[in-house]
């Protein structure tokens, strides 16, 4: 965190000053470790084993916050008797379909709900990354579930959890992660001791958790711990994602993602959502508790915002105009399609996949096979010059004279040259004022897309084709101003916020959303950001003039709420769990919820409220159900649906690992998304042969001094000079083993690429003892590319493409490689070297390794 989010880290230091104990788990000793109280070196890709060990420690010693767990989580809920665990299936839950490599989730359901997950496998959900829909709400589940408040029922979640994690002992943690038992116990002890009624503990993660083939389950494990310890919805608690781009949260809320529409509404699927009603019902899941009951209003209001007057109840608000998904249209699928010549054009909007995405060679080859490419950036980035300066030009794979891609480079406006809102990592929207005009041809994205849309509409104005109606009926009349005819960002924000169609009055809450076409809302979770016609995101009341929650600085979705599910900061009766940790509580006199923050609960629903039988939607939420976006109002220790690779987290080895999974016969996540494509390959891992060809584990991450793919830092001299060259960090032990000299060169080889880097021999890396083997890990920054003030080979070139099944995020935090002294070969010899390694490792590009690695017996059970 000190490395990648130093300013956020000030709060950790603040806590430390007040006596907090900081633990840092990382494959290498970083600037965070330097100031942490305890540092745990870990083998990359084994976090579930570590966290699972903590879960077991909590359950074994009964250290959970029992009152919280009983009331606020699904610990007491009873699961179907059809469910069987990985402990019985050698790494498989019940319901695995080897054909598609996905689960049928029926058996995972709560007792009596077995039919509710739909039928068949979940390959479709995987292809559409449906896990992402749950960023704002839980998966569908029926509201009424059988419970055993004594937690003794053998099939209640609590007991299942206990059995599932029983083998995650300190010894197992040591065997899998390489973390000595003493240190693990120190962590577990401190974590549990600092949680409960009087204290809360916080868990912070970043893409070190998400960029794995089991990434979602990493975070699930963290969430289970935090629920067990009562750390959710309470001040100083929570699971905190530290995101890496200024508005990456915003670009998920208002998604530029193929499978989502604003506010986490799913993009329609051709088979599941042929009609508006089917689409809406699939979201709100009739009969389910919670706020998603209003999905119809949100959906209608979005379409109304898109198509204005043309959208009427009669034509289902132009639902027919919406494009439909048929499967995986994600960025990696796109790149492979580009290589196959299926895609003609590509827009890059402040993004540099030639350096920043996994398998850089595939990215560049894909771009070299387009008809046209539009790059909008501040700088001439690698993704714009791949045809000229890319490494494939050196190897002869791309010949400029033969590369047909037509490239448009359009300069972009910087953050001070345009106005608008960023949504930062805590869902806080902050408005930026414009300081200066952009230079030369530089324009904002707002300008580019507004005027591009204007031109497209002009060109199609006389089109008789039905397909063009969607474009022509679009509301696209934003006022412009200034010499450049810049569209008004405030007017767009106003549309995002939503307004009453008749009067134009901005809405102040998504509770005002209507399904009758009387409201138009661009992104329902953002409703309120323009309440009363005031740009709430532009509020900048000094922190000196308000309390520590600082509710008048910017605006957080939803409803300016700073901590989600903060009803959980009070006990079931509505009183604060403790005076120290009071945050939101029930004021019995006034008959309302009150506190420092906006209560995340219906303001006047008393703690004693119990829904009438059969109630659904918000009415179905009881007065002590704090998790109001979940179908049952509970925090999920066990996820009966919504997570495609299992209701509980399970340790699987990374896709590329030198180690056989010590826990199960199943080596890696069996449901991961794989791409069999000639350009893609996976280094062999046990039980396959030849894994020793790539004996070392490598992991990549950021340096404080650089930003992502480097376009915004390698081009800036005061940053470039601080980390001026690509390097690889190796332990002294590995340096000895491979004859690497400090500041000398080394090159790293994977089945995809070979890159070179200067060697930093440092004590900050250590070999780990895993299963009586010595595992060496090396670390690389991934910021370097071939353009800019400082250049170097790109670490992301080493990775292949394997994705998490829930969200289709690639495993780019761990891989295997070989490390060799000296510089890499250049020209065609480089390809020969890679080919030689592929041959020796038995890699057959274009063919996936088998997903199932259990023996026949295990397979049988897995499939049963």
């Amino acid at each position, binding site marked *: 965190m000190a490395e990648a989010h130093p300013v956020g880290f*000030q709060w950790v230091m603040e806590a430390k000053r007040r006596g907090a104990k900081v633990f840092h788990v990382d494959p290498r000793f970083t600037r965070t470790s330097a100031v942490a109280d305890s540092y745990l070196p870990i083998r990359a890709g084994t976090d579930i084993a570590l966290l699972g060990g903590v879960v077991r420690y909590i359950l074994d010693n009964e250290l959970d916050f029992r009152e919280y767990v009983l009331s606020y989580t699904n610990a007491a809920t009873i699961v179907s008797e059809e469910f069987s665990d990985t402990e019985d299936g050698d790494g498989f839950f019940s319901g695995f379909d080897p054909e598609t490599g996905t689960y049928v989730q029926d058996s995972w359901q709560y007792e009596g709900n077995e039919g509710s997950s739909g039928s068949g496998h979940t390959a479709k959900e995987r292809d559409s990354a449906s896990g992402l829909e749950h960023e704002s709400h839980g998966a569908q589940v029926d509201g009424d579930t059988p419970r055993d408040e004594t937690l003794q029922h053998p099939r209640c979640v609590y007991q299942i959890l206990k059995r599932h994690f029983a083998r995650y002992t300190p010894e197992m943690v040591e065997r899998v992660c390489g973390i000595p038992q003493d240190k693990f116990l120190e962590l577990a002890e401190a974590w549990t001791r600092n949680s409960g009624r009087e204290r809360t503990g916080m868990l912070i993660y970043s893409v070190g958790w998400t960029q794995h083939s089991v990434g979602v389950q990493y975070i699930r494990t963290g969430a289970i711990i935090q629920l067990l310890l009562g750390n959710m919805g309470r001040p100083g608690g929570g699971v905190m994602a530290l995101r890496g781009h200024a508005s990456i949260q915003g670009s998920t809320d208002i998604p530029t993602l193929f499978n989502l529409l604003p506010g986490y509404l799913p993009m329609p699927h051709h088979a599941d959502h042929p009609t508006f009603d089917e689409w809406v019902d699939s979201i709100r899941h009739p009969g389910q508790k919670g706020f998603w009951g209003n999905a119809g209003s949100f959906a209608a209001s979005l379409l109304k915002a898109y198509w204005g007057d043309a959208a009427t109840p009669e034509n289902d608000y132009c639902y027919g105009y919406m494009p439909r998904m048929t499967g995986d249209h994600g960025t990696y699928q796109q790149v492979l399609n580009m290589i196959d010549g299926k895609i003609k054009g590509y827009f890059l*909007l402040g993004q540099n996949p030639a350096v920043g*995405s996994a398998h850089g060679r595939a990215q560049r080859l894909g771009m070299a096979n387009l008809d046209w490419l539009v790059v909008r950036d501040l700088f001439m980035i690698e993704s714009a010059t791949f045809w000229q300066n890319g490494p494939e030009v050196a190897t002869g794979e791309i010949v400029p004279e033969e590369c047909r891609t037509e490239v448009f480079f359009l300069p972009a406006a910087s953050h001070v040259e345009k106005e608008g809102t960023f949504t930062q990592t805590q869902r806080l929207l902050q408005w930026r004022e414009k300081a200066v005009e952009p230079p030369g041809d530089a324009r904002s994205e707002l300008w580019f*897309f507004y005027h*591009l849309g204007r031109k497209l509409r002009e*060109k199609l104005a006389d089109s008789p084709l039905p397909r063009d109606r969607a474009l022509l009926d679009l509301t696209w009349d934003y006022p412009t101003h200034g010499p450049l005819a810049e569209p008004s960002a405030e007017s767009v924000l106003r549309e995002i916020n939503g307004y009453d169609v008749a009067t134009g009055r901005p809405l102040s809450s998504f509770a005002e959303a209507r399904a009758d076409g009387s409201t138009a809302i661009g992104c329902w979770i953002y409703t309120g950001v323009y309440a009363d016609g005031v740009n709430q995101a532009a509020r900048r009341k000094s922190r000196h003039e308000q309390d520590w929650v600082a509710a008048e600085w910017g605006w957080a979705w939803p409803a300016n709420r700073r901590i989600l599910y903060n009803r959980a900061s009070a006990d079931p009766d509505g009183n604060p769990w403790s005076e120290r940790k009071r945050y939101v509580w029930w004021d019995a006199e006034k008959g309302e919820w009150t506190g420092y923050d906006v209560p995340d609960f219906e303001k006047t629903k008393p703690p004693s409220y119990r829904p009438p039988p059969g109630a659904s939607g918000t009415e179905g939420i009881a007065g002590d159900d704090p998790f109001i976006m979940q179908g049952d109002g509970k925090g999920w220790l066990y996820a009966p649906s919504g997570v495609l690779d299992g209701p509980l987290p399970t340790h699987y080895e990374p896709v590329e690992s030198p180690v056989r999974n010590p826990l199960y016969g199943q080596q890696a996540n069996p449901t991961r998304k794989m791409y069999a494509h000639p350009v893609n390959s996976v280094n062999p891992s046990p039980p396959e042969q030849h894994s020793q060809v790539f004996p070392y584990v490598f992991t990549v991450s950021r340096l404080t001094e650089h930003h992502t793919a480097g376009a915004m830092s390698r081009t*800036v001299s005061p940053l470039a000079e601080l980390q001026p060259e690509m390097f690889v960090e190796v332990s002294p032990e590995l340096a000895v083993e491979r004859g690497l000299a400090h500041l000398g060169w080394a090159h790293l080889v994977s089945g995809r690429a070979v890159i070179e880097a200067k060697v930093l021999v440092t004590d900050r890396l250590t070999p780990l003892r895993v299963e009586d083997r010595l595992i060496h890990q090396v670390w690389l920054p991934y910021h370097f590319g071939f353009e800019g003030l400082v250049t170097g080979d790109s670490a992301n070139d080493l990775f292949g493409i394997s994705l998490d099944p829930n969200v289709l995020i690639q495993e780019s935090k761990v891989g295997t490689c070989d490390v060799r002294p000296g510089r890499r070969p250049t020209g065609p010899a480089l390809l020969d070297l890679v080919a030689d390694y592929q041959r020796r490792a038995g890699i057959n590009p274009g063919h996936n390794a088998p997903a199932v690695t259990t023996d026949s017996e295990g397979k049988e059970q897995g499939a049963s």
Partner: protein
Amino acid sequence: MGLRTFIEGWPVYRQLTGTDPLGRGAAAKSDGSRALTARTDTADSMARSVCPYCAVGCGQRVFVKDGQVSQIEGDPDSPISRGRLCPKGAASKSLVTSPLRQTTVRYRRPYSTQWEDLELDTALDMIADRMLAAREQTWEDVDTQGRPLNRTLGFSSLGGATLDNEENYLIKKLFTAMGALQIENQARI
């Protein structure tokens, strides 16, 4: 300037007559030092902004003099950052004023080995034409069972995490209306 002012302005004179015989401070202070002001004080305007790098969302104050950014520093009022910035945030002025910034449209023809210049409006026109052509060629009305698809997989887009919500909104809205599905950004990565 008369001789008298010249002599009185001579630091040696000030050393001999003033409080600073050793010529260490008051006597040695130059005209330049006397005229020194903080350029944040003399800025024409100040915009309140947010750091463009990571997602912590640190407050920034952007000072402008003569239409140019003259300084960017942390906003002490921000409850998130309390006026502090990391090296990247602190380098924001160098970022926006970098001499490496590309400020004109560049165009690379198919099979060409070099860049050429292009008018912005022409570029916009050419891009619009190419989008429509690609859409035309790859349009899918219905699937094999006649269910609507209403889409094109002929072009795609990547990016948005460094852009504003308003921009993302327009991107998604326009592309969706065009039937373009393959819209992605860093959040997938």
